[in-house]
């Protein structure tokens, strides 16, 4: 098929073209219809009629030029270009958010995000694990100096794989939503977000290499054959109280002293040095719970009413997507009394908006949640987190 551009010089010539237009058997497709002599007329002509149309124009002295010699060639090239473009996109970001990844793979993706979204994402190292693996935090910031910030961590208990997987999805979501989603944009224009996707890298590696059900850190306990400390019983909040074990072989072993675990100490130091963290959010699995302090005691926090209302609003947002229900309450009344927990520490330190999430499911798969549920879990969890973050943004204190 050819596309011709016809330059009409007067009304008479325009009338001739309108006559041509009426000849249906020619199957002419006018891209610009003949209407006035001032405008060119572009027309696509099926291959077998090209000669006839050209003969007509020439016999009437109507000027024309060939705009597109062979339309098919143009279409084929366009298709090729599109496929090439798509393939480049695929190979430059081949991270599949819908499967579980090794530590190395997650760490590589952190670098990729920091590079692809370098205007708002940077990677910081806040310390090293017991076995000397780096503890990396992604910082989301649009500038300022020490803006009020939100802290979010995942994977403090290494077997809770959906949390690390959700965290990396959430990182991508925040980065790509900036400039596109009004809420995320206004959030990052006022506040920073710090995201620790793998809080316990030693434990995470161990769940891949040796024991899928490993929960604790991998620190050696002097005088015991048993390894590791429960990092969520090791914070300085009611440390040594009920709800944590003094037995190194226990999965809820609190450790020899508060902050004995470098993984915990690194976060505490970061938060203290930053000085302007306004919310502390942490991801666990499983049970589908959204909790606020306290765990180490069963009395209500001073901000109970606000935290409970906000928790319910967040749970409602989560439910809106796939119907997943989260139970809201304090740690002590919702699961059990547990001392040395992170959000109790952050709350008593002065970070009012302290929440702990227990993600999917409620026990059918438990820790071994099918990978097909990673993205739905991340999507719904993000809605709950966003609700809380919006409230923090709009309620400075």
């Amino acid at each position, binding site marked *: 098929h050819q596309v011709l551009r016809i330059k009409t010089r007067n009304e008479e010539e325009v009338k001739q073209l309108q006559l041509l237009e009426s000849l249906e058997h020619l199957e002419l497709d006018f891209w610009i219809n003949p209407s006035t002599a001032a405008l060119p007329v572009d027309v696509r002509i099926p291959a077998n009629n090209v000669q006839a149309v050209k003969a007509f124009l020439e016999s009437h002295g109507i000027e024309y030029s060939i705009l597109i010699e062979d339309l098919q060639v143009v279409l084929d090239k366009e298709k090729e270009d599109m496929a090439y473009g798509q393939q480049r996109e695929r190979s430059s970001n081949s991270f599949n958010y819908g499967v579980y990844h090794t530590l190395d793979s997650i760490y590589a993706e952190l670098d990729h995000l920091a590079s692809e979204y370098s205007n708002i994402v940077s990677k910081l190292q806040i310390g090293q694990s017991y076995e000397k693996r780096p503890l990396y935090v992604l910082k989301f910031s649009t500038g300022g100096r020490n803006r009020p910030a939100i802290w979010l961590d995942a994977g403090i208990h290494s077997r809770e794989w959906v949390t690390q997987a959700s965290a990396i999805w959430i990182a991508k979501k925040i980065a790509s939503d900036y400039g596109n989603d009004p809420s995320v944009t206004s959030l990052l224009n006022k506040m920073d977000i710090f995201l620790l996707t793998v809080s316990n890298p030693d434990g995470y590696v161990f769940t891949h290499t040796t024991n899928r059900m490993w929960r604790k850190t991998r620190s050696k306990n002097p005088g015991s*054959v048993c390894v590791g400390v429960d990092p969520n019983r090791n914070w300085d909040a009611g440390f040594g109280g009920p709800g944590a074990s003094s037995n190194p072989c226990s*999965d809820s072993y609190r450790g020899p002293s508060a902050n004995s675990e470098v993984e915990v100490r690194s976060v505490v130091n970061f938060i203290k040095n930053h000085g302007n963290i306004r919310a502390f959010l942490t991801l666990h699995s499983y049970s589908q719970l959204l909790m606020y302090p306290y765990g180490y005691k069963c009395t209500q926090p001073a901000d109970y009413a606000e935290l409970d209302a906000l928790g319910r609003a967040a749970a409602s947002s989560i439910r809106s997507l796939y119907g997943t229900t989260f139970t809201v309450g304090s740690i002590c009344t919702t699961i*059990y009394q547990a001392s040395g927990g992170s959000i109790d520490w952050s709350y008593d330190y002065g970070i009012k908006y302290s929440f702990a999430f227990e993600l999917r499911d409620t026990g059918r798969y438990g820790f071994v949640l099918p990978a097909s549920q990673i993205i739905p879990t991340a999507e719904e969890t993000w809605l709950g987190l966003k609700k809380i973050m919006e409230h923090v943004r709009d309620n400075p204190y």
Partner: protein
Amino acid sequence: DIDDVGHKYYLELELEDVLDKDSTVNCTAEVLYHLGNKNIAPDVQFTLEGELKNTDEADNIFYNRVKSLEKELVAENIPDSHGNVPPEMEPIHLLAWVASGYVIWQNSTENTKFQLAQIKHVKQVKRTDEYLEFDYMILLHDMVSQEIIPWQMTVLWHPQHGVQVTQDSRQPKHASG
């Protein structure tokens, strides 16, 4: 509270078919946790207000498939680390779930909350009679203590005669992981 006896709970439950979310049955139950001696399983009485779905067809297909295997069925890590269960292993998974329910009941107190975390290993034991027998090593997760407890259980099953746990025993945990 029942003096000198224990604690009794009155429950109204809605049971949901794991394989068909729209299929539910109401149920009332009474659970009595005995005082003192923690080695007695809680008493359970229940009434189903409705009928459970008939599963004869699926049961028979599974039964015949296993009966006709040349070699004993053996499998590990169900679900696997990534939550996958091969379709042909799903009945083995479900059977473990039912059987572990019995083990959980027998070992529950007011301070435990057990879930089946994973089947570490399962081996079929060929029998001369009509029953299927499986030797399972499972992991139970106790939400309260957060412990993962290995447990061995021997399970008998027949489509018409149901599930039986003929033997079960708690296993020691490995020290370093």
